[in-house]
């Protein structure tokens, strides 16, 4: 079936809505990254088995739905019951029968599966009442947790492809670009470049071929928003790309997906095939002269391929080395043709902007930073998960209201944003708003949206060392300042963390950083020293403790610490079991002892001790 008029799409939507309204209840089994890592598939299969075996009036297999990330990954696996908006957390296979018998059949709540508010200890039935959800505004993540990613009909039911149909049948390319420009949409991959301006430049280049690329090479460690969108709502990405293609005059599009995201590739492929079947991709879309199709390119494990010019090389089957951008890729990109490259989340925003208008979009967020931003809120925070907030929301709101504060009530130390190109911000910056410009001013950057919360047990020297080691192994090696400079910076960080640091080392590192920033070709090198620079800016004392006192205050750097068990030990044997080096001895219910000669200071014991019985010196 081909959809060729806006009316036809509306009718289809109505049909799917009616079908959906007939379902008395819907059982949503989240298949987001967190839930999949916690056994969501087994739960889905169990529901399927029971629903097929037992005949329940009004509840057919259609009521069971696999969706993308619902958000609250910390409590995975998640099961939601719609339309009541009930959320069950940490669901296990054995709970499935109960959910069907009690909640589905009799409308009874199962209290033990409910979310418990960490502050009030109150059990919350409906997920919109949980602070984690109530403080969010979802645009890019609008359909995650609600629709079946592998079913285009479900996407159409919630209003999918309306924006694209409006763009292609009622608007001119210039009007689309004007609308996107007016909306103030900026690149969600982290750079924050105005999307409308990018499209306008590309359109103006006279050439027989233009390309549209979606950057799904979400390389920043600690970020999984794009993975969640590609897996959970692939049609929103396709829709955004089709609009972009129509606006700039492209016939071919590419989605470049990371090697580590196999499910994203599968779901995008399904989506592409479904869109072709409906005539939304392919020749003469909506009965116009506009033709456009999309192909998927899988990455092969190279962080630098997230950089636009490297990504284009990789799409062309070559080594992903960036090039100097005297001529930008919107003018000369893939195969030297004008190319628009946007990130997954950027494309996911586009259909709604077209449908609802630029004014609606600028009404959300703050000046020059309109709309929302999705983040993966992770690290030492209570409610880890996938979130989306209006631009300008403060770090404190995100970490304490949505995130529920830090695990075990430990003190906040820093929050890392922007991936390896970003930085760590201390508690004094908690009230600063989260938007492109404020974060850059604070010495970090927006980045693609990883937000990693750190507590007092995180060492900033170790964090800088970690990122430098990451960058050293991911530097493509093309230019010296990055390849050699970052390596030297890394060596100095190791030296300090091992207690061999000397006076003057920090100054040497700062000077080296300046040179790397000045001399590197691409963003990876230019921003490479940021993890060091931001930590030394806000946590210089901690570096000095390593250098002068040969101490690691956070108790992380192995060469500088020693563990000892204190008298709070009740002999639970948890640490003994956790120690891989047989360095802990003691019998049950008797205080344990660490053999200092065998201890490697790995800290495995500290992470399992629930009684604070292990001191770090």
């Amino acid at each position, binding site marked *: 079936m081909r959809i060729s008029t806006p009316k036809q799409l509306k009718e289809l939507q109505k049909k799917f809505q009616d079908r959906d309204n007939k379902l008395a209840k819907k059982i949503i089994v989240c298949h987001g990254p967190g839930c999949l890592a*916690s056994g969501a598939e087994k739960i889905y299969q169990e529901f399927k088995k029971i629903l097929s075996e037992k005949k329940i009036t009004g509840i057919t297999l259609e009521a069971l739905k696999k969706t993308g990330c619902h958000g609250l990954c910390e409590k995975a696996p998640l099961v939601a019951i719609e339309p009541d908006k009930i959320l069950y957390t940490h669901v296990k296979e054995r709970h499935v029968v109960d959910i069907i018998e009690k909640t589905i059949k009799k409308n009874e709540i199962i209290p033990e599966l409910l979310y418990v508010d960490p502050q009030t200890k109150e059990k919350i039935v409906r997920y919109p009442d949980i602070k984690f959800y109530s403080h969010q505004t979802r645009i890019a993540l609008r359909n995650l947790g609600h629709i079946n990613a592998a079913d285009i009909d479900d996407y159409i039911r919630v209003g999918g492809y309306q924006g694209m149909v409006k763009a292609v049948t009622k608007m001119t390319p210039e009007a689309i670009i004007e609308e996107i420009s007016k909306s103030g949409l900026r690149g969600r991959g982290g750079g924050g470049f105005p999307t409308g301006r990018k499209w306008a430049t590309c359109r103006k280049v006279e050439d027989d071929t233009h390309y549209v690329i979606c950057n799904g090479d979400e390389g920043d460690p600690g970020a999984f928003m794009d993975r969640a969108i590609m897996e959970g709502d692939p049609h929103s990405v396709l829709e955004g790309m089709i609009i972009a293609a129509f606006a700039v005059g492209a016939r071919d599009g590419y989605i470049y997906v990371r*090697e580590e995201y196999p499910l994203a590739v599968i779901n995008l492929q399904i989506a592409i095939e479904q869109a072709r079947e409906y005539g939304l991709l392919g020749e003469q879309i909506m009965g116009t002269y506009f033709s456009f199709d999309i192909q998927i390119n899988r990455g092969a494990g190279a962080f630098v391929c997230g950089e636009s010019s490297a990504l284009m090389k990789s799409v062309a089957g070559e080594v992903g080395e960036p090039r100097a951008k005297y001529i930008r890729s919107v003018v000369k990109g893939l195969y030297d043709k004008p190319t628009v490259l946007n990130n997954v989340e950027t494309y996911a925003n586009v259909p709604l902007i077209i449908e609802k208008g630029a004014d609606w979009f600028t009404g959300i967020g703050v000046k020059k930073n309109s709309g929302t931003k999705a983040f993966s809120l992770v690290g030492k925070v209570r409610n880890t998960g996938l979130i989306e907030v209006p631009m300008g929301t403060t770090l404190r709101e995100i970490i304490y209201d949505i995130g529920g504060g830090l695990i075990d009530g430990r003190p906040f130390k820093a929050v890392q944003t922007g991936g390896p190109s970003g930085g760590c911000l201390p508690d004094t910056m908690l009230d600063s708003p989260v938007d492109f410009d404020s974060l850059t001013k604070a010495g970090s950057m927006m980045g693609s949206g990883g937000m990693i919360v750190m507590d007092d047990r995180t060492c900033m020297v170790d964090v800088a060392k970690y990122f430098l080691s990451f960058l050293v192994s991911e530097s493509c090696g093309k230019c010296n300042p990055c390849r050699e400079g970052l390596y030297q910076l890394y060596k100095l960080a190791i030296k300090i963390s091992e207690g061999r640091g000397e006076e003057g080392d920090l100054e040497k590192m700062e000077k080296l950083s300046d040179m790397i920033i000045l001399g590197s070709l691409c963003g990876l090198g230019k921003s490479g020293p940021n993890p060091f620079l931001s930590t030394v800016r806000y946590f210089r004392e901690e570096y000095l403790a390593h250098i002068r006192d040969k101490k690691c205050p956070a108790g992380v750097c192995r060469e500088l610490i020693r563990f000892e068990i204190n008298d709070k030990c009740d002999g639970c044997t948890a640490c003994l079991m956790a120690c891989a080096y047989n360095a802990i001895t003691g019998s049950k219910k008797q205080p344990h002892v660490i053999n200092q000669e065998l201890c490697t200071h790995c*800290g495995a014991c500290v992470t399992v001790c629930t009684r604070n019985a292990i001191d770090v010196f």
Partner: protein
Amino acid sequence: MKQDFTTIPSIIARHPRKASSLIMILQDIQKEFNYLPEEAMRKTAETLEVPMSKVYSVATFYNAFSLVPRGEKLIRVCVGTACHIRGSKVIREQFENELKIKPGETTPDMKYSLEVVGCVGACAMAPVVMINDKYFGSVKTSRIKQLVGKG
């Protein structure tokens, strides 16, 4: 692991015969054999009419490719930022101890290969381990023996 190289031409033929197919072909070959056999790389170079040096440079640039055979089970310990903060270093060391190999190596019986990966995108469940295509979240040191046994 299959060592029947007669399938190589048909794998190459799945893609358009142009230089831009190189990475996709190598990915399919790697999927079939678990690594890139030299014969397959030579055949790819010949078919696409690109120099062998280019195939080699692509094969060694990208982390996903391996020039040596890998074990039946590929254990990937995520060392992304969230995992690092939540103790992935210890997890990695435990796997090293358990399997007696370092990241990038394969056990002599060809059963396990160990690798570290920058981020698998399941950060909320840190620390995460991927065994073949399956994800395991909130991994504790006490679970590693069990994980090596299954997956």
